[in-house]
C-alpha cells in the first residue's frame, strides 16, 4: 500500500518545525514515531500534503523530573518508558501501561506524545495522563499555551491542538511520597486495541486518600476521566466499601458501545472490576509494596 503523495520535511529544530506548521497550516502533519500516522496514510484515512518529521531533533527525546514536575518530550518513545527506572519506581501507572502498548516492535518507534495527539479513544496514554492530572504544553510559532489533559480531548481522534501547534511537552505533577498507581488492560491478543482499560493513580495522605485519579480507555468517544469516582475517594479511608463505591461510579462514567469485543454490560462490568483491582494494587504500592 502506498500513501497519497506528500512533501517531506526533515526538521532540524523545533523552531524550523513550528515555522513550517505556521506556513503550511492544515496541510501539514507532524511525524513523530509514525506508528499510527503511517498506517493511516497507507489506508488513506489521512492524506496531508506535507509531513514534518521531527525524528532528527534529538533533544526532543527526554524525560526529567524537577521543580515538582515530571516533564516528557515529544520524542520519548514507549520503549524508553518501558525501561525507565524512574517510572518503575514512582510512576507505576505509566510503568504498567508502557509494556502493554501495541507490541514490542511498535514500541521501539512509537512515542507517548504522538499517541496522545492522535487521540484514539482506544489509546492508552491519554487515559494514563487523565489519571495523573497531566498538563500538555502546546507550542506554535507565536507562543505556547498549557492545557489540562481533561481539556485536551474533544472527541474521537480530536483534540484542541491547532494545526499550527505541536504537543511540545507533557507535564505531570511529581509523585509525592505514598503514591501508587496501576494500569489494567483487557485485550484479546497482543497488539489489539483495548477492550477496556483502567488507569489508577493514588496519593495517600496518612491513612486517607489525598487525591485519586481514574482514567478509562475504550469505553467512550474519547478517553474518560471518572471524576465522580475520584471525588468519592478524596479524603476517604480506602476500605472495601469506599473501593466498591468508587468502582461503581467509574462504571457509571463509562459510555461503552457494543462491538465484537463485548457488550455494553460486559464492558461496564470490566470497568468496575478493574477499578476495584486497580485501587487495591495502587494502594499496596503506595504503602511500599508490590
Amino acid at each position, binding site marked *: *500500500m*502506498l500513501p497519497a503523495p506528500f512533501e517531506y520535511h526533515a526538521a532540524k529544530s523545533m523552531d524550523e518545525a513550528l515555522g513550517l506548521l505556521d506556513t503550511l497550516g492544515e496541510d501539514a502533519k507532524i511525524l513523530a514515531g*509514525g*506508528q499510527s500516522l*503511517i498506517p493511516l496514510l497507507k489506508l488513506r484515512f489521512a492524506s496531508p500534503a506535507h*509531513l514534518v518529521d521531527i525524528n532528527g531533533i534529538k533533544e526532543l527525546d527526554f524525560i526529567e523530573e524537577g521543580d515538582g514536575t515530571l516533564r516528557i518530550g515529544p520524542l520519548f518513545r514507549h520503549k524508553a518508558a518501558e525501561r525507565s527506572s524512574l517510572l518503575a519506581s514512582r510512576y507505576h501507572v505509566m510503568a504498567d501501561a508502557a509494556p502493554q502498548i501495541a*507490541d514490542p*516492535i511498535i514500541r521501539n518507534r512509537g512515542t507517548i506524545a504522538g499517541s496522545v495527539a492522535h487521540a484514539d479513544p482506544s489509546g492508552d496514554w491519554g487515559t494514563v495522563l487523565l489519571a495523573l492530572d497531566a498538563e500538555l504544553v502546546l507550542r506554535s510559532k507565536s507562543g505556547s499555551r498549557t492545557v489540562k489533559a481533561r481539556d485536551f480531548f474533544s472527541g474521537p481522534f480530536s483534540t484542541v491542538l491547532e494545526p499550527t501547534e505541536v504537543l511540545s511537552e507533557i507535564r505531570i505533577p511529581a509523585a509525592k511520597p505514598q503514591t501508587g498507581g496501576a494500569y489494567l488492560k483487557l485485550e484479546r491478543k*497482543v*497488539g489489539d486495541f483495548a477492550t477496556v482499560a483502567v488507569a489508577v493513580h493514588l496519593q495517600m495522605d496518612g491513612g486517607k486518600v489525598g487525591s485519586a485519579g481514574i482514567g478509562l480507555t475504550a469505553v467512550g468517544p474519547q478517553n474518560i476521566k471518572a471524576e465522580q469516582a475520584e471525588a468519592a475517594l478524596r479524603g476517604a479511608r480506602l476500605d472495601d466499601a469506599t473501593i466498591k463505591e468508587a468502582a461503581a461510579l467509574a462504571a457509571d462514567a463509562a459510555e461503552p458501545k457494543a462491538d465484537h469485543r463485548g457488550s455494553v454490560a460486559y464492558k461496564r462490568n470490566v470497568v468496575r472490576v478493574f477499578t476495584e483491582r486497580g485501587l487495591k494494587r495502587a494502594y499496596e504500592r503506595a504503602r511500599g509494596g508490590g
Partner: protein
Amino acid sequence: MGHSITVTVNGEKKTAEVEPRLLLVHFLREKLRLTGTHIGCDTTHCGACTVLVEGTPVKSCTMLAVQADGQQVTTVEALAAGGTLHPIQAAFKQEHGLQCGFCTPGMMLTSIALLQEKPDPTEDDIRWALSGNICRCTGYMNIVKAVKSAAVQMKTAAATPEAATAAARS
C-alpha cells in the same frame, strides 16, 4: 518531488532517489531487490517486514524510506554472509522453527536483537520479544526452541575466538 537518500544496507552504502511516500520495505524489495524482507499484512500488525534500523527491530512497512537516510539497516540477506548460516538461521533449521517460512526473516531479526540485549533469555523473554511477530502456521513452540538453541550456540561461540568473529558479524 524526489529525495536523494543514502542508506547503509547490510554494510553497503546505497544511494537512491525516492518519493517521500515510498515505504522502507518497498525501498528494500523494489529498489534494492532485497526480497528476503516480506510484506505480510501491510497494516503494522504481523511483523513479517521487520528489519533492524540502527540495530533496533522496526516494521519496515511503517517507516518511510526517506526516514532511513543516513542510517544503518540490516535485513535477513546479511545473516549468512560468506555462505555460512548465522547461528539463528542454523537453529531455526535444526529446531524446525519454520513451516512456510514467510514470517521467518522477521522472527530471526527480532530474535537477534533480543539475543544481543539478553544473551541468556528465559522462555518468557523470548515469547515477549516475539509477541509483535505473527506466525500464520502457528509454529511458535519450535520458534521459541530455535531462539533458545541459538542463544546457547552463540554463547558457546562467543567463548571461542574464531566463532566469536562469526557471531559478531551479525
